[in-house]
């Protein structure tokens, strides 16, 4: 019996395969704080993961909800009181003067602009565009009387703590709490 081949046999050169076997496959970043620096830390970590080809999910809870609330996301403040790392040597009382916190936050945002850091809403858009998922905590949303409509459109859903753990299910996942 003679076998016929549809195509002539040619030697194909194997393409160089680039190993992309990462141990860390997914991160779940929980943001529980509403201070400018804490929110940015969470955003940088989630976005940085996506940049490395690592899946990223974000869960905002308690004061962290400010970062995904339409009215507040781009108006976060940095703490000037009770923050010993902020202008060391300066009497802490000064940090409590009216307008001081707003001024410090404005200065911080200015420095961030210089580094071409996006504002919170744009950062969240970038994360969503990169395949990241953003969620709000149900318990905290109920506590602060926030509805889906109060949140930015990038917020995928309002979920329970159980749902949040389901997001982190699977091998190679790390949970980061801020």
């Amino acid at each position, binding site marked *: 019996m003679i076998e016929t081949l549809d195509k002539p046999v040619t030697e194909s050169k194997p*393409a*160089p*395969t680039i190993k*992309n076997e990462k141990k860390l496959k997914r991160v779940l970043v929980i943001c529980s704080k509403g201070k400018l620096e804490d929110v940015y830390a969470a955003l940088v970590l989630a*976005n940085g993961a*996506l*940049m490395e080809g690592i899946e990223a999910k974000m869960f905002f809870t308690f004061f962290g909800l400010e970062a995904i609330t339409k009215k507040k996301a781009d108006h976060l403040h940095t703490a000037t009181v009770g923050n010993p790392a902020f202008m060391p040597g300066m009497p802490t009382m000064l940090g409590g003067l009216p307008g001081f916190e707003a001024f410090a936050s404005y200065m911080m945002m200015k420095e961030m602009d210089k580094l071409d850091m996006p504002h919170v809403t744009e950062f969240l858009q970038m994360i969503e*565009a990169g395949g990241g998922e953003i969620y709000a905590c149900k318990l905290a949303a109920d506590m602060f009387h926030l509805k889906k409509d109060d949140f930015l459109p990038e917020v995928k859903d309002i979920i329970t703590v159980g749902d949040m753990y389901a997001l982190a299910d699977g091998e190679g996942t790390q949970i980061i709490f801020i």
Partner: protein
Amino acid sequence: METIVMNLPVNAEGYLLDPNTWTREWAQEIAQGYGITLTDKHWAVIEWLRKKQSEGVALTIRKVGTSGITDIKEFYQLFPGGPLKVSSKIAGIPKPVSCI
């Protein structure tokens, strides 16, 4: 990784040592390793990256998103598994050092 594809020297992470030695054929071979078939859109991004890098611009995903060539969402789809790093490698330019 230390693979020398088409005899062009690369560093330990596979980035081309000298962007001037880059060729389109080399880029195609590297892209193939990532399972990417380069389309006109890919080439447009690669050319843009090479141009900006030669001008000394610090490249970020955000800048690619505002390049007018592609948006961030499409950029992630074009170069899966870390778009800026993968595209920089294919474009034969140094590893990007941005955190954003």
